[in-house]
Protein backbone atom coordinates (compact mmCIF):
# COMPACT_ATOMS: atom_id res chain seq x y z
CA UNK A 1 0.00 0.00 0.00
CA UNK A 2 2.80 2.37 0.99
CA UNK A 3 4.73 1.51 -2.17
CA UNK A 4 1.68 2.19 -4.29
CA UNK A 5 1.23 5.59 -2.64
CA UNK A 6 4.88 6.53 -3.22
CA UNK A 7 4.69 5.38 -6.86
CA UNK A 8 1.54 7.42 -7.36
CA UNK A 9 3.13 10.51 -5.81
CA UNK A 10 6.23 10.14 -8.00
CA UNK A 11 4.03 9.72 -11.07
CA UNK A 12 2.11 12.90 -10.23
CA UNK A 13 5.32 14.89 -9.67
CA UNK A 14 6.87 13.57 -12.90
CA UNK A 15 3.71 14.30 -14.92
CA UNK A 16 3.51 17.83 -13.52
CA UNK A 17 7.13 18.38 -14.49
CA UNK A 18 6.46 17.21 -18.05
CA UNK A 19 3.31 19.30 -18.37
CA UNK A 20 5.06 22.40 -17.03
CA UNK A 21 7.86 22.00 -19.54
CA UNK A 22 5.55 21.25 -22.44
CA UNK A 23 3.67 24.49 -21.93
CA UNK A 24 6.87 26.52 -21.89
CA UNK A 25 8.63 25.72 -25.07
CA UNK A 26 9.37 27.19 -28.45
CA UNK A 27 7.51 25.70 -31.42
CA UNK A 28 9.14 24.17 -34.48
CA UNK A 29 7.51 23.80 -37.89
CA UNK A 30 7.01 20.18 -38.85
CA UNK A 31 8.71 19.09 -42.09
CA UNK A 32 5.27 18.61 -43.58
CA UNK A 33 4.69 22.36 -43.25
CA UNK A 34 8.03 23.90 -44.08
CA UNK A 35 11.27 22.27 -45.17
CA UNK A 36 14.34 23.28 -43.17
CA UNK A 37 17.57 24.37 -44.82
CA UNK A 38 19.90 21.51 -45.70
CA UNK A 39 23.06 23.61 -45.52
CA UNK A 40 22.39 25.98 -42.61
CA UNK A 41 25.99 27.12 -42.15
CA UNK A 42 26.26 28.59 -45.66
CA UNK A 43 23.08 30.62 -46.09
CA UNK A 44 22.64 33.62 -48.35
CA UNK A 45 19.88 36.14 -48.87
CA UNK A 46 18.82 38.54 -51.59
CA UNK A 47 17.22 41.91 -50.94
CA UNK A 48 14.76 42.55 -53.76
CA UNK A 49 13.83 46.07 -52.80
CA UNK A 50 15.71 49.30 -52.52
CA UNK A 51 13.00 50.76 -50.29
CA UNK A 52 14.13 52.69 -47.26
CA UNK A 53 16.49 50.94 -44.85
CA UNK A 54 15.87 47.39 -46.06
CA UNK A 55 19.46 46.54 -46.91
CA UNK A 56 20.77 47.26 -43.41
CA UNK A 57 17.74 45.74 -41.63
CA UNK A 58 18.07 42.56 -43.72
CA UNK A 59 21.75 42.30 -42.78
CA UNK A 60 20.96 42.76 -39.08
CA UNK A 61 18.01 40.35 -39.17
CA UNK A 62 20.05 37.53 -40.69
CA UNK A 63 23.41 38.00 -38.93
CA UNK A 64 21.65 38.18 -35.54
CA UNK A 65 21.25 34.38 -35.75
CA UNK A 66 24.93 33.67 -36.49
CA UNK A 67 26.10 33.34 -32.84
CA UNK A 68 24.13 30.08 -32.64
CA UNK A 69 27.01 28.19 -34.35
CA UNK A 70 24.39 25.97 -35.99
CA UNK A 71 23.45 28.68 -38.46
CA UNK A 72 25.52 31.07 -40.52
CA UNK A 73 24.24 33.70 -42.87
CA UNK A 74 27.16 34.53 -45.15
CA UNK A 75 25.70 37.67 -46.65
CA UNK A 76 23.71 39.06 -49.54
CA UNK A 77 23.82 37.81 -53.13
CA UNK A 78 22.75 39.72 -56.22
CA UNK A 79 20.86 36.86 -57.89
CA UNK A 80 17.54 35.92 -56.22
CA UNK A 81 17.59 32.48 -57.83
CA UNK A 82 20.58 31.29 -55.80
CA UNK A 83 19.53 32.83 -52.48
CA UNK A 84 18.13 30.80 -49.58
CA UNK A 85 15.99 33.75 -48.62
CA UNK A 86 14.50 36.62 -50.62
CA UNK A 87 13.58 39.75 -48.66
CA UNK A 88 11.29 42.27 -50.26
CA UNK A 89 8.71 45.00 -49.75
CA UNK A 90 5.03 44.70 -50.62
CA UNK A 91 5.08 46.91 -53.68
CA UNK A 92 1.58 45.60 -54.58
CA UNK A 93 0.22 47.03 -51.35
CA UNK A 94 -1.82 44.00 -50.38
CA UNK A 95 -5.08 45.58 -49.13
CA UNK A 96 -5.62 42.87 -46.51
CA UNK A 97 -2.23 43.32 -44.84
CA UNK A 98 -2.29 44.09 -41.13
CA UNK A 99 0.96 42.31 -40.32
CA UNK A 100 4.32 44.08 -40.17
CA UNK A 101 5.91 41.30 -42.22
CA UNK A 102 5.28 37.71 -43.22
CA UNK A 103 7.44 34.75 -44.18
CA UNK A 104 6.18 32.71 -47.13
CA UNK A 105 7.37 29.22 -47.98
CA UNK A 106 6.83 26.57 -50.61
CA UNK A 107 6.43 22.81 -50.30
CA UNK A 108 8.74 22.20 -53.26
CA UNK A 109 11.52 24.74 -52.76
CA UNK A 110 13.83 25.45 -49.84
CA UNK A 111 13.87 29.15 -50.64
CA UNK A 112 11.80 31.31 -48.29
CA UNK A 113 10.48 34.80 -48.90
CA UNK A 114 9.99 37.57 -46.37
CA UNK A 115 7.60 40.35 -47.35
CA UNK A 116 7.52 43.58 -45.35
CA UNK A 117 4.24 45.47 -45.42
CA UNK A 118 3.29 49.08 -44.96
CA UNK A 119 2.94 48.54 -41.19
CA UNK A 120 6.72 48.19 -41.06
CA UNK A 121 7.12 51.87 -41.89
CA UNK A 122 4.56 52.75 -39.22
CA UNK A 123 6.71 51.21 -36.47
CA UNK A 124 8.00 54.05 -34.40
CA UNK A 125 11.51 52.85 -33.66
CA UNK A 126 14.41 51.16 -35.40
CA UNK A 127 14.78 48.46 -32.72
CA UNK A 128 11.26 47.19 -33.46
CA UNK A 129 12.07 47.17 -37.17
CA UNK A 130 15.18 45.08 -36.60
CA UNK A 131 13.31 42.80 -34.17
CA UNK A 132 10.74 42.20 -36.91
CA UNK A 133 13.50 41.18 -39.32
CA UNK A 134 15.08 38.84 -36.74
CA UNK A 135 11.61 37.36 -36.08
CA UNK A 136 10.90 36.70 -39.77
CA UNK A 137 14.34 35.17 -40.33
CA UNK A 138 13.48 32.89 -37.38
CA UNK A 139 10.46 31.68 -39.38
CA UNK A 140 12.70 31.09 -42.41
CA UNK A 141 14.95 28.97 -40.19
CA UNK A 142 12.00 26.80 -39.13
CA UNK A 143 10.67 28.38 -35.94
CA UNK A 144 6.94 28.98 -35.49
CA UNK A 145 5.55 31.57 -33.10
CA UNK A 146 6.42 30.63 -29.57
CA UNK A 147 3.80 29.90 -26.96
CA UNK A 148 2.48 32.97 -25.19
CA UNK A 149 3.97 32.07 -21.82
CA UNK A 150 7.40 32.42 -23.47
CA UNK A 151 6.85 35.91 -24.85
CA UNK A 152 9.37 37.63 -22.61
CA UNK A 153 12.20 35.27 -23.61
CA UNK A 154 11.50 34.98 -27.32
CA UNK A 155 11.83 37.13 -30.40
CA UNK A 156 9.40 34.62 -31.95
CA UNK A 157 6.45 36.01 -29.98
CA UNK A 158 3.45 36.52 -32.25
CA UNK A 159 2.18 39.79 -30.83
CA UNK A 160 4.11 42.78 -29.55
CA UNK A 161 7.83 43.33 -29.11
CA UNK A 162 10.63 42.76 -26.60
CA UNK A 163 12.65 45.64 -28.09
CA UNK A 164 15.65 43.42 -28.73
CA UNK A 165 18.09 43.31 -31.65
CA UNK A 166 18.98 39.65 -31.16
CA UNK A 167 17.23 36.32 -30.56
CA UNK A 168 16.53 35.48 -26.90
CA UNK A 169 17.01 32.31 -24.84
CA UNK A 170 13.90 30.50 -26.12
CA UNK A 171 14.89 31.24 -29.72
CA UNK A 172 18.44 29.93 -29.28
CA UNK A 173 17.15 26.70 -27.76
CA UNK A 174 14.70 26.42 -30.64
CA UNK A 175 17.22 26.90 -33.42
CA UNK A 176 19.56 24.38 -31.77
CA UNK A 177 16.67 21.94 -31.78
CA UNK A 178 15.94 22.51 -35.48
CA UNK A 179 19.55 22.06 -36.65
Amino acid at each position, binding site marked *: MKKAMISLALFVVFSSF*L*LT*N*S*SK*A*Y*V*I*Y*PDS*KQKKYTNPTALTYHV*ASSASDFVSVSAKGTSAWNPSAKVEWRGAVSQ*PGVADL*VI*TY*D*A*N*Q*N*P*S*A*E*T*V*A*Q*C*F*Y*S*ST*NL*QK*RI*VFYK*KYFELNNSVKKTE*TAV*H*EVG*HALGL*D*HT*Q*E*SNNSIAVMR*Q*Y*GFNETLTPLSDDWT*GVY*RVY
Partner: protein
Amino acid sequence: MKTTKKVFITIGILTGLSLIFLVYLDLTETNKSQKAHVGKVKDMIVDGKLEGYNSLQGLELDSPLIVKGKKLSSENKLLWVDGIEGNGIPDGYTLSEFEITKVIKDETGRNLKENAHIQIAEAAFYNPQENANVHSNGYILMKKGKEYLLFLAKNESSDILKVRGTVFGKLPLEGNDLELIDKGDKVINYNSNTYEQDSLVLKVLNEAQDKYK
Protein backbone atom coordinates in the same frame (compact mmCIF):
# COMPACT_ATOMS: atom_id res chain seq x y z
CA MET B 1 -47.64 -6.18 -48.25
CA LYS B 2 -44.17 -7.11 -49.42
CA THR B 3 -44.37 -4.53 -52.20
CA THR B 4 -45.49 -1.79 -49.76
CA LYS B 5 -42.51 -2.59 -47.51
CA LYS B 6 -40.13 -2.35 -50.50
CA VAL B 7 -41.63 1.01 -51.50
CA PHE B 8 -41.15 2.38 -47.96
CA ILE B 9 -37.55 1.15 -47.83
CA THR B 10 -36.82 2.69 -51.25
CA ILE B 11 -38.38 6.01 -50.23
CA GLY B 12 -36.37 5.94 -47.01
CA ILE B 13 -33.10 5.31 -48.83
CA LEU B 14 -33.83 8.00 -51.42
CA THR B 15 -34.74 10.52 -48.68
CA GLY B 16 -31.53 9.71 -46.83
CA LEU B 17 -29.41 10.09 -49.96
CA SER B 18 -31.14 13.37 -50.82
CA LEU B 19 -30.44 14.73 -47.34
CA ILE B 20 -26.75 13.76 -47.57
CA PHE B 21 -26.58 15.41 -51.00
CA LEU B 22 -28.22 18.61 -49.71
CA VAL B 23 -25.83 18.80 -46.74
CA TYR B 24 -22.91 18.26 -49.13
CA LEU B 25 -24.16 21.06 -51.40
CA ASP B 26 -24.54 23.41 -48.44
CA LEU B 27 -21.02 22.69 -47.23
CA THR B 28 -19.42 23.17 -50.64
CA GLU B 29 -21.33 26.40 -51.22
CA THR B 30 -19.62 28.13 -48.29
CA ASN B 31 -16.67 29.25 -50.31
CA LYS B 32 -16.94 29.75 -54.04
CA SER B 33 -13.21 30.27 -54.50
CA GLN B 34 -12.50 26.83 -53.08
CA LYS B 35 -15.28 25.01 -54.94
CA ALA B 36 -13.56 24.68 -58.29
CA HIS B 37 -10.30 23.31 -56.94
CA VAL B 38 -9.45 19.79 -57.93
CA GLY B 39 -7.92 17.32 -55.50
CA LYS B 40 -7.30 17.76 -51.82
CA VAL B 41 -6.73 21.41 -50.97
CA LYS B 42 -4.12 21.88 -48.24
CA ASP B 43 -4.12 24.55 -45.57
CA MET B 44 -0.97 26.64 -45.24
CA ILE B 45 -0.56 29.07 -42.35
CA VAL B 46 1.72 31.99 -43.17
CA ASP B 47 3.07 33.48 -39.98
CA GLY B 48 3.47 37.19 -39.66
CA LYS B 49 4.44 39.67 -37.00
CA LEU B 50 1.37 41.43 -35.62
CA GLU B 51 1.23 44.21 -33.09
CA GLY B 52 -2.04 42.77 -31.75
CA TYR B 53 -4.48 44.10 -29.15
CA ASN B 54 -4.61 43.61 -25.40
CA SER B 55 -8.28 44.53 -25.05
CA LEU B 56 -11.52 45.05 -26.93
CA GLN B 57 -11.29 48.76 -26.12
CA GLY B 58 -7.99 49.07 -28.00
CA LEU B 59 -9.44 47.26 -31.00
CA GLU B 60 -12.55 49.48 -30.98
CA LEU B 61 -10.51 52.69 -30.79
CA ASP B 62 -8.26 51.56 -33.63
CA SER B 63 -11.16 50.61 -35.94
CA PRO B 64 -12.80 53.47 -37.87
CA LEU B 65 -15.62 51.14 -38.95
CA ILE B 66 -17.44 48.53 -36.82
CA VAL B 67 -20.35 46.74 -38.50
CA LYS B 68 -22.51 43.66 -38.44
CA GLY B 69 -23.45 41.96 -41.68
CA LYS B 70 -23.11 39.08 -44.10
CA LYS B 71 -20.70 38.16 -46.87
CA LEU B 72 -22.37 37.90 -50.27
CA SER B 73 -19.58 36.77 -52.57
CA SER B 74 -15.81 36.53 -52.84
CA GLU B 75 -13.01 36.59 -55.39
CA ASN B 76 -9.51 35.14 -55.05
CA LYS B 77 -6.67 37.60 -55.73
CA LEU B 78 -3.02 36.68 -56.29
CA LEU B 79 -0.21 39.18 -55.96
CA TRP B 80 3.12 38.38 -57.57
CA VAL B 81 5.74 39.91 -55.34
CA ASP B 82 8.29 40.19 -58.14
CA GLY B 83 5.70 41.66 -60.48
CA ILE B 84 5.98 38.73 -62.89
CA GLU B 85 2.99 36.40 -62.99
CA GLY B 86 3.89 32.85 -62.07
CA ASN B 87 7.29 33.85 -60.69
CA GLY B 88 8.25 33.13 -57.10
CA ILE B 89 5.94 32.52 -54.15
CA PRO B 90 2.65 34.44 -54.48
CA ASP B 91 1.08 36.65 -51.87
CA GLY B 92 -2.65 37.33 -52.08
CA TYR B 93 -6.00 38.02 -50.46
CA THR B 94 -9.70 37.39 -50.95
CA LEU B 95 -11.89 40.29 -52.02
CA SER B 96 -15.30 39.86 -50.40
CA GLU B 97 -18.56 41.70 -51.01
CA PHE B 98 -20.25 42.35 -47.65
CA GLU B 99 -23.75 43.62 -46.87
CA ILE B 100 -24.08 45.71 -43.72
CA THR B 101 -26.99 44.90 -41.42
CA LYS B 102 -25.99 47.28 -38.61
CA VAL B 103 -23.51 50.12 -38.32
CA ILE B 104 -21.99 50.36 -34.84
CA LYS B 105 -19.28 52.92 -35.57
CA ASP B 106 -18.45 54.79 -38.77
CA GLU B 107 -15.59 57.25 -38.89
CA THR B 108 -14.71 56.51 -42.51
CA GLY B 109 -16.45 59.62 -43.82
CA ARG B 110 -18.52 57.41 -46.12
CA ASN B 111 -21.73 57.68 -44.07
CA LEU B 112 -22.46 53.96 -44.42
CA LYS B 113 -25.98 52.75 -43.65
CA GLU B 114 -27.85 49.47 -43.22
CA ASN B 115 -28.01 47.43 -46.49
CA ALA B 116 -24.95 49.19 -47.92
CA HIS B 117 -22.41 46.96 -49.65
CA ILE B 118 -18.71 47.24 -48.86
CA GLN B 119 -15.63 45.46 -50.19
CA ILE B 120 -13.35 43.76 -47.70
CA ALA B 121 -9.89 42.32 -48.29
CA GLU B 122 -9.62 39.14 -46.22
CA ALA B 123 -6.19 37.84 -45.24
CA ALA B 124 -6.50 34.38 -46.79
CA PHE B 125 -6.35 33.20 -50.39
CA TYR B 126 -6.03 30.18 -52.66
CA ASN B 127 -2.53 29.49 -54.02
CA PRO B 128 -2.86 27.35 -57.17
CA GLN B 129 0.89 26.56 -57.20
CA GLU B 130 0.50 24.67 -53.95
CA ASN B 131 -3.20 23.77 -54.32
CA ALA B 132 -3.50 25.31 -50.88
CA ASN B 133 -5.59 27.80 -48.97
CA VAL B 134 -3.11 30.22 -47.41
CA HIS B 135 -4.16 31.68 -44.06
CA SER B 136 -2.34 34.75 -42.76
CA ASN B 137 -1.77 34.10 -39.05
CA GLY B 138 -4.47 31.43 -39.23
CA TYR B 139 -7.22 33.75 -40.52
CA ILE B 140 -10.23 31.81 -41.86
CA LEU B 141 -12.41 33.33 -44.59
CA MET B 142 -15.91 34.41 -43.66
CA LYS B 143 -18.64 32.02 -44.75
CA LYS B 144 -21.31 33.28 -47.11
CA GLY B 145 -24.68 34.06 -45.54
CA LYS B 146 -23.39 33.85 -41.97
CA GLU B 147 -23.55 36.95 -39.76
CA TYR B 148 -20.32 38.53 -38.53
CA LEU B 149 -19.19 41.46 -36.44
CA LEU B 150 -16.26 43.17 -38.12
CA PHE B 151 -13.72 45.70 -36.90
CA LEU B 152 -12.44 47.30 -40.08
CA ALA B 153 -9.71 49.65 -41.22
CA LYS B 154 -9.29 51.78 -44.30
CA ASN B 155 -6.72 51.51 -47.08
CA GLU B 156 -5.20 54.76 -48.25
CA SER B 157 -5.31 54.02 -51.96
CA SER B 158 -8.79 52.49 -52.34
CA ASP B 159 -12.22 51.97 -50.78
CA ILE B 160 -11.35 48.36 -49.99
CA LEU B 161 -11.46 47.80 -46.24
CA LYS B 162 -9.37 45.33 -44.24
CA VAL B 163 -10.04 43.34 -41.07
CA ARG B 164 -8.31 45.13 -38.21
CA GLY B 165 -5.58 43.05 -36.58
CA THR B 166 -6.32 40.16 -39.00
CA VAL B 167 -7.58 37.48 -36.54
CA PHE B 168 -8.66 40.05 -33.94
CA GLY B 169 -11.19 41.91 -36.07
CA LYS B 170 -13.64 39.20 -37.19
CA LEU B 171 -16.21 37.63 -34.87
CA PRO B 172 -18.85 35.13 -36.08
CA LEU B 173 -22.20 35.94 -34.47
CA GLU B 174 -23.82 32.56 -35.07
CA GLY B 175 -22.85 29.57 -32.96
CA ASN B 176 -19.92 29.32 -30.60
CA ASP B 177 -17.17 28.63 -33.12
CA LEU B 178 -14.70 31.53 -33.18
CA GLU B 179 -13.30 30.30 -36.54
CA LEU B 180 -9.67 30.31 -35.55
CA ILE B 181 -7.39 27.64 -36.94
CA ASP B 182 -6.49 25.17 -34.25
CA LYS B 183 -2.77 24.77 -34.63
CA GLY B 184 -2.76 21.79 -32.30
CA ASP B 185 -2.26 19.23 -35.02
CA LYS B 186 -0.12 21.43 -37.23
CA VAL B 187 2.84 22.09 -35.00
CA ILE B 188 5.48 20.03 -33.29
CA ASN B 189 6.24 21.08 -29.80
CA TYR B 190 9.54 20.52 -28.08
CA ASN B 191 8.34 17.66 -25.95
CA SER B 192 4.64 17.24 -26.47
CA ASN B 193 1.87 17.69 -29.00
CA THR B 194 -0.04 20.16 -26.88
CA TYR B 195 -0.40 23.73 -27.98
CA GLU B 196 -1.20 26.64 -25.75
CA GLN B 197 -4.33 28.45 -26.87
CA ASP B 198 -3.92 31.85 -28.40
CA SER B 199 -5.26 33.47 -25.24
CA LEU B 200 -4.85 37.09 -26.33
CA VAL B 201 -7.09 36.69 -29.40
CA LEU B 202 -9.58 34.60 -27.42
CA LYS B 203 -9.69 37.22 -24.66
CA VAL B 204 -10.48 40.06 -27.09
CA LEU B 205 -13.02 38.02 -29.07
CA ASN B 206 -14.73 36.84 -25.90
CA GLU B 207 -15.03 40.46 -24.74
CA ALA B 208 -16.55 41.32 -28.14
CA GLN B 209 -18.97 38.39 -27.85
CA ASP B 210 -20.14 39.59 -24.43
CA LYS B 211 -20.65 43.14 -25.63
CA TYR B 212 -22.11 42.74 -29.11
CA LYS B 213 -23.62 39.27 -29.53
